[in-house]
């Protein structure tokens, strides 16, 4: 009887020990020092920049294949966003101006995560204030979800008290090379000079 109790006790110690190890290992990888920079979510084995099917702001159906052959900058947002998204679009416009004719050798994409409100017409109206080279992409709930998955983007619809909603979304600008391979990010807080350097690097590596 005593031996049996001792066995159970040791058994529980082993199980507990395993749990502690497993949980802390999990923490290390997901939130702890071994975690990826939190620009994107989804399985790390998935490359950033997979296939998508969306509609551009002129109403044309497009896929990732339409944007191959030139490096691409892409970020996710929504048009009922008065602060962060305009800042990013303003940064993009400033980068396009600074690059001059070289800017034509890149694709500039703004993808909406607000599948319900952002139609191609809404996107077109919103983008009017920025450089004409920025292409707005929107789509159905399923197509937006697939595009977000392809870029390992986090987004979430957040209901508000007044019955409306807002969108949470990842902030980064993703860079892909001409073959559609992930080539880095531009952070919201990085300076214009650093961002410009990254884009010039992307262009010369082609």
């Amino acid at each position, binding site marked *: 009887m005593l031996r049996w109790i001792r066995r159970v006790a040791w058994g529980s110690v082993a199980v507990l020990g395993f749990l502690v190890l497993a949980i802390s290992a999990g923490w290390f990888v997901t939130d702890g020092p071994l975690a990826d920079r939190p620009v994107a979510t989804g399985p790390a084995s998935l490359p950033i920049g997979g296939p998508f099917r969306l509609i551009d702001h002129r109403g044309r159906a497009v896929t990732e294949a339409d944007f191959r052959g030139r490096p691409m900058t892409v970020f996710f947002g929504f048009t009922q966003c*008065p602060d962060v998204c*305009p800042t*990013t679009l303003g940064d993009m416009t400033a980068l396009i101006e600074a690059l001059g004719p070289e800017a034509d050798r890149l694709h500039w994409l703004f993808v909406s995560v607000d599948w319900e409100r952002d139609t191609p017409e809404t996107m*077109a*109206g919103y*983008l009017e*204030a920025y450089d004409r080279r920025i292409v707005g992409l929107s789509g159905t709930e399923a197509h937006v979800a697939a595009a977000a998955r392809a870029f390992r983007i986090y987004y979430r619809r957040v209901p508000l008290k007044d019955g409306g909603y807002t969108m*949470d*979304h990842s902030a980064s600008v993703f860079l892909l090379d001409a073959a559609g391979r992930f080539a880095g990010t531009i952070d919201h807080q990085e300076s214009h000079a650093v961002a410009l350097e990254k884009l010039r690097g992307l262009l010369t590596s082609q």
Partner: protein
Amino acid sequence: MRTLLPGLLAGTLALAAAAHAQPSDITVSLAWTRAVGATAPTAVGYLTLRNRGANPDRLISAETPAARAVEIHEQRREEGVMRMRPLPDGVPVPPGETVTLGPGGTHLMLVGPTRALARGERVPLTLHFERAGQVHVELSVEAAGTRQPAHAGH
């Protein structure tokens, strides 16, 4: 000079209007917004609020003829994710302090602009404070998406 004069005049008028309403402890500076197209669903408002009095005050609401409604929002970035939320209690302005509403932080969201906002023009805005009451200001329209007004610090 041609652009300076109307600006000065408007500024003086706005100041006069504010002063006439009541001696306010709240001063508003650096009031600006960013250009948007005619069908943009939202625009923004940024301001610097200073409380020169001895009592706490609070910005509780705002309105402008240039938009259907004005909401007070905060913007936070958590682990690379942008989150924008309404501030139902408004923006506290403690005595002796300066509070800045600016890009990437607390801002006014102009919901449903009634027209395009073009760079260089000015947009009237009425602020409602808990103690100071109404304060009239004008937002100067800066470049779309810019991180700071062209004449910051002037």
